C-alpha cells in the first residue's frame, strides 16, 4: 500500500524533523559519571574552534568542531587527563585552540605589555601632577594681590545683590 502514502504531509513532517537533526549538540557526549560529563562540557568550552574562531569547541556547529569533540570525548573515555588532551590539541593546532594563552616568550607582550603601558602612563601622570603642584604657587606681587582681592570683592558684591 506504499503508493497510497501522500507525499505532501510526509514532506511537511520531514521539514519539522530536519532542523533538529542538523544541529550538533553536546547531549550525545555523556559519561556514566555526571561529573565527567560536566568536565567534558567545561573543557570544550575552554577550547576554541578553528573554523568559527569566536566560538568554543562546545558551541561551534562546524564539522571540524564535531570531529574534535568526538576526539576529546574518546580521549576522556580512555582516561586521558585534561592536560594530556590540551597538549594533544596544542601539538596539532597550536596555542590558538586555547582561549587562555600560556605565558611564554612569544606571549610576553600580550601578558606584560598592558602592565608596561600602565607603568609608562602612570609615570607621565605623576610627573604632570607634580608639575601642576609646583605651578600652583603663583608669583603675585603684593599690589597684584590687593587688586585681585578688590576684584573678587566687587564681583562678590554684585552677586549678592542681584536685584
Amino acid at each position: 500500500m506504499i503508493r497510497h502514502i501522500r507525499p505532501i504531509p510526509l514532506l511537511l513532517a520531514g521539514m519539522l524533523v530536519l532542523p533538529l537533526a542538523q544541529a550538533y549538540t553536546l547531549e550525545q557526549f555523556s559519561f556514566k559519571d555526571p561529573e565527567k560529563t560536566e568536565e567534558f562540557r567545561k573543557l570544550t568550552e575552554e577550547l576554541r574552534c578553528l573554523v568559527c574562531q569566536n566560538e568554543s569547541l562546545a558551541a561551534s556547529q562546524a564539522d571540524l568542531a564535531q570531529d574534535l569533540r568526538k576526539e576529546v570525548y574518546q580521549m576522556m573515555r580512555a582516561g586521558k587527563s585534561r592536560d594530556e588532551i590540551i597538549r594533544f590539541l596544542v601539538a596539532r593546532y597550536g596555542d590558538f585552540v586555547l582561549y587562555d594563552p600560556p605565558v611564554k616568550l612569544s606571549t610576553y607582550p600580550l601578558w606584560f605589555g598592558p602592565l608596561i603601558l600602565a607603568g609608562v602612563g602612570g609615570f607621565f601622570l605623576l610627573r604632570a601632577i607634580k608639575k601642576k603642584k609646583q605651578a600652583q604657587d603663583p608669583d603675585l606681587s603684593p599690589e597684584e594681590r590687593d587688586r585681585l582681592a578688590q576684584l573678587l570683592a566687587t564681583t562678590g558684591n554684585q552677586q549678592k545683590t542681584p536685584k
Partner: protein
Amino acid sequence: MSKSMRFLTPLAIFGVLVLLLFYGLYQDPHLVPSPLIGRPAPKFTLPALEDPKVTISNADLKGKVSLVNVWATWCVSCRAEHKELMRLAKVDGVRILGLNYKDDREDAKRWLQIYGNPYVANAFDADGRVGIDWGVYGTPETFLVDRNGIIRYKQIGPIDQQVWEKTLRPLIDKLKAKT
C-alpha cells in the same frame, strides 16, 4: 617637557597606533600558524583513494621533496586550486601527494577523471582522523615536506600563481639544492 613635545608625544603615540591598526587590517585571522613546521610529518597509514588495498604512509614522503595537498570534492576553493596544481605537476614537475579529506571515494575518483590528476598518489582519509593529526582545519591546505619527511611550510588556502612564485617555488628550490 617643552611645549612642542607636549603636542608631539600624543601625536606620535597616535601615529604608532594607526600603523598597528593598519597592519592589522591586512592580517588574516583565519591563518593560524601551524605548530608542525620544522617537525617530522605526523605518522599516517591510509588506504589509497584509487585502490583500498594499497597503503600510503610516511614512507611515500621519504627521499623526495613533496607537497602534501589536502583536498575534497565538497571544497569549492580546491576546485579553484586544482588548475594550478595541474600546472605545477606538469610544467614544474612538482611531486604532489594528495590527502583526500572526509570525502566520498567515488566522487573523488570522478573528480580526478574529469579535471585531471596532478597527484603521484592519494591517501583516502574518510573520517578526517589523519587530518586532525596534521592540524587540518580548512581545505585546501598544503604542506611542503622535505626529503627527510620534515614539514617546512604550510600553505593555508588555495595555491595560486602568486603563492607558487613568491613562496613555494623559492622554498622548494632551496630544499632541492640541499643534498
